[in-house]
């Protein structure tokens, strides 16, 4: 076989396969929610959103009250937990642990599930005001025993909704578009 033929028959397909493999693997690794979905770190206390938000139907804003008044929704202070757990389920070891921390004035450090890079300045207030359900970004939290990330906080996800927000908005909302310019989130 002529060396040139060998090159065409062997090297070219191998090269093509290598290129394909590279494209596919890069694509797979960088697909928007590849690393995001399913992240569910173990928490210091076995808090269940399924119980509190699902079964007991406590409003999200009862604990995450910052979402209406601040950029940050916030994680409740242990005082908020103790509003109920002074009297509720005080026999459970987890509640006893919570009570101990609270009485000692020690902070309860949760493992962060949702995070944004430092150059992103997301603001909960206008989203809550517009009637966007918390579940739109945070997933069906009320069904989660362990809080699990459903959606990556990526700009593509933000923009998809900002360009066509009607699915996330309550019926009858007059909003047809949301901000798409850089300074809305980056500053």
């Amino acid at each position, binding site marked *: 076989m002529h060396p040139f033929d060998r090159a065409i028959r062997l090297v070219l397909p191998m090269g093509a396969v290598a290129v394909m493999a590279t494209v596919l693997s890069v694509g797979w690794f960088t697909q928007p929610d590849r690393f995001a979905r399913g992240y569910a770190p173990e928490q210091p206390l076995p808090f269940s959103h399924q119980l509190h938000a699902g079964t007991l139907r406590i409003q999200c804003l009862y604990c995450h009250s910052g979402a209406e*008044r*601040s950029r940050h929704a916030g994680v409740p202070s242990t005082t908020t937990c103790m509003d109920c757990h002074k009297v509720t389920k005080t026999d459970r070891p987890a509640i006893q642990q919570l009570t101990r*921390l609270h009485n000692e004035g020690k902070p309860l450090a949760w493992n962060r599930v949702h995070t944004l890079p430092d150059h992103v300045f997301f603001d909960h207030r206008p989203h809550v*005001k517009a009637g966007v359900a918390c579940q739109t970004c945070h997933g069906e939290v009320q069904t989660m025993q362990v809080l699990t990330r459903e959606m990556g906080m990526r700009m593509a996800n933000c923009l998809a909704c900002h360009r066509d927000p009607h699915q996330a908005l309550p019926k009858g909302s007059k909003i047809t578009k949301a901000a798409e*310019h*850089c300074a809305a989130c*980056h500053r």
Partner: protein
Amino acid sequence: MAEHPIPSPDTQEDLPRFWRTLEERHETPEARRLAEDEFLPAALDPADPPPSGISRRNFLGLVGAATAVAASTACDRPQGKVVPYTRRPSEIIPGVANHYASTFQEGTRLYPVLVKTREGRPIHITGNDEHPGVRGKTSPRALAEIIRLYDPDRLKAPQADGKAVDWSGAQRRLMEGVQAAVKAGQQTLLLSGAVLSPTAKNLLADLKKALPGFLPIAWEPAESESAREGGMAAYGTQVSIRPLLDKARVILSLGADFLQGADPEAIRAFAGRRKPEGQAPPNRLWVLEGPMTLTGSNADHRCPVKPSRLGAIALGLARELVVRKGLALPAGVSIADLPEGRPAEIPAPTWEGLLADLASAKKEALVLCGPEMPAASHAAVHLLNAMLGSEALEIRRQDPLAGRKEIRAALEAMKAGRVGALILWGVNPAYALGDRDAWSAAAAKVPFRAWIGQIPDESAATCQLLLPENHWLESWNDFGPEELSTLQQPAVAPLYDTRQGEDILLGLLRPGGGGDTVPADYHQLVRDRWRRECHPAGSPVPFDRFFEAALHDGVLRGKASPAAAMPLLGSAAVQAAKGAPAGGGDFELVLAPGCHVHDGRYANSGWLQECPDPVTKTTWGNPLSLAVSDARRLGLKDGDVATLSVAGRSLRVPVVLQPGQASGVLSLALGYGRETGSTARGVGVNAFPLLGPDAASPNLRTGAKLESTGKHVELARTQAHFRLDGRDIVRSQTFADLAHGGEHKGHHVELHTLYPDQEFPDHKWGMVIDLNACVGCSGCVLACQSENNIPVVGPEQVAKGREMHWIRIDRYYEGDEENPSGTVHQPMLCQHCDHAPCENVCPVNATNHSPDGLNQMAYNRCVGTRYCANNCPYKVRRFNFLEYTADKTEPESLAYNPEVTVRPRGVMEKCTFCVQRIQDGKVRAKGEDRPLRDGEIVPACAAGCPAEAIVFGDLKDPKSRVSRLAADRRGYKVLEELGARPAITYLADLRNPAQGGHHAG
């Protein structure tokens, strides 16, 4: 640029009307090149080693390896912790700022302020808008207090003999030292700064009663003693003068720099009376001075004279006002005491115009004398004001401050062994006395020496016991006067194991450690006094509620006690006024507190060191200013080092050529040349040793000599940086021009554009900057630095043209270089052009236009090509040439505004119109279902401007203040001819020269 010989005096015909540097005036090739390049050539210097020492090739290799490692481990990487409050204080919502009213004391001045805190840490300071005087404004130095709170050099725990001790041990040691002095029958000397708080005064009185031999001395090395001497002569007591510039139609300044920034009320009142739409006739400012001051640069008429002559000139004015204008002399003054004739250095038209103006304005006239001027001129000015019957000033008795005599006596007592204990509280005599050896010798004779302060200084090194003090943002206090009391409250708990100075002294009242009659802490003492003296008797409001309301407002209006009439002692005043220091010698030297570092107490503040001096535009240092003609004569140019000698003392100092400086006059700032503090050490030279021994004229020395050393240093000076290329950048006209039509001649036809017009559906943000109101104080620069996390880059970087300020103040002189006929200060910042030249050239679209008219900058998209800066005609883009922020850790990083990204190396940045405030305002309005109100969004620069020269708002709303001002006939856009359509409209500067008076000197 400094390498070029100084151009010879004006010979060409076609010189530019406005210029910033002598080189620009004569258009040297170097200056031409600076106009053409976007950065100084040095800024692009490749000689800078990469800080990490990694080569490009290694770097790429590492990136590859790191990516591979990251890709294999990236799944479910930990995202960090969320730590909520255990017990959230009800007033704190994470992400929402709280504001606390407080008061900042600097020497004998008080600044009522609002402190913005986020999650409990102070991040920004503005003036207290509840205070009727400052109305939301404050001084640039007060703004910069944030960075001083987080100064990493602060002493974090008490020390005794170089070893850390706890507070009970430290307090015991202090008590023992003082008790030993009492037992030995020796004095306990407390050397402190001015004590203005009534509660602190009570505390000192109690200490005096409890401790025999306790002697408090209040000493402010930067407060002028000659002003006090002049006041003593004229009124028989120490007085303070407060100008009421809103009532002044004619202002004559004899070397008084009242617009320098330290007095926001004065700037507001001065600028407020120059608005052409105002009801009252605009004021006219006459300035006779030696050095070029910021006030001089704002004058309608300025005449350079030697400061030693000011007393005689003022007396000459008094005589002419009596003889020719029929004003009455005060009792006890005879006309024979007053010198005859016009002083030779003042041109006849200026003299006549000034006389006519003063005589016609009478009680609406105000004469002010520079604190650094000799006592004689102060006495003469008191005489003039009394003759004119000026209603534009308030004279009050002042608590005595120690002068040279008292300090010298204290040093003698120390040397003679009469002092058993010495407590230094917030003062630094080892530095500010200007004689380290004398201080050390005297201090060595005192058995017990304690130091109370924040950053260990030169004096701390001479003390055994170091007691770290709270910053005022961590302290309680209260201040008078009775008709308008202000409170100081902590905006943050002490960051370190420190105590408030008053609390430390309070410990001296408890000999056994107990003491039941003594309140637990100073806070209690303040509350007790307020309960006793401020809470109205029989008020239905309980005291706690009353005090809380006062704390909330920060001010409390009380009964106004009319200022007691202060009769002028005519004959004593005129005698003092004639005792002017003899002129003669080569030069007169004026020593004034540094515009930003004051008496050296702020020398460790990077923000203040890097903020350019408003006149010389020098940062990081105090070069000696001298007249251009004197420099030519001595063969000196900018940055040349000269030997300055006065009365046997000499120091080597670089010089700058200062247009407008009187020939034969030198000026040098105090407060530099510190030997302690990681930022302050070695910056500039210490001018305190040059202060004179004579209390009548310590800050003005005659007979100074100047010799070239042949050496040259690079000055970190910003005046030639970022030169705009084009004509008609600043506009200046007179009130008379404005009345007669007013349309400025230089109107340009805009070039046709190929780009489609931008569309603004809801808002179009814009700004109007009134050059007539701007006095150049730099308040905006520091407000922006604090709000937008602007890094401090240091003197070497500034010299290369890499300073990062988003807003700069370009200072343009007009006309003659020996005595410019005017000066215009032009704040220059991103113009947010509709057709922004920077946007078109960004290869990654990191900078583009927002639908509300902002030229937005996405840092995370920027790859650092710098094309945008290259294409920006306004030269307002700043590039992070080096990593200025990554090494900032706590406590410094606590000063950052959490709403603004901290930019890393390799990223371009610029003014955003404070987009974080715009976004917050929009979201708040949306939350309340209402449209945005005009004036609701105020960027930091506008909020920090005491002259209210900056107005921000929505140009789409025709009724907004900014829209109306932008349509003003004085309005113009800088470099309008380029067609970039900037969103900032400048209003032309206005001058108010006297009719017939030869324009500006």
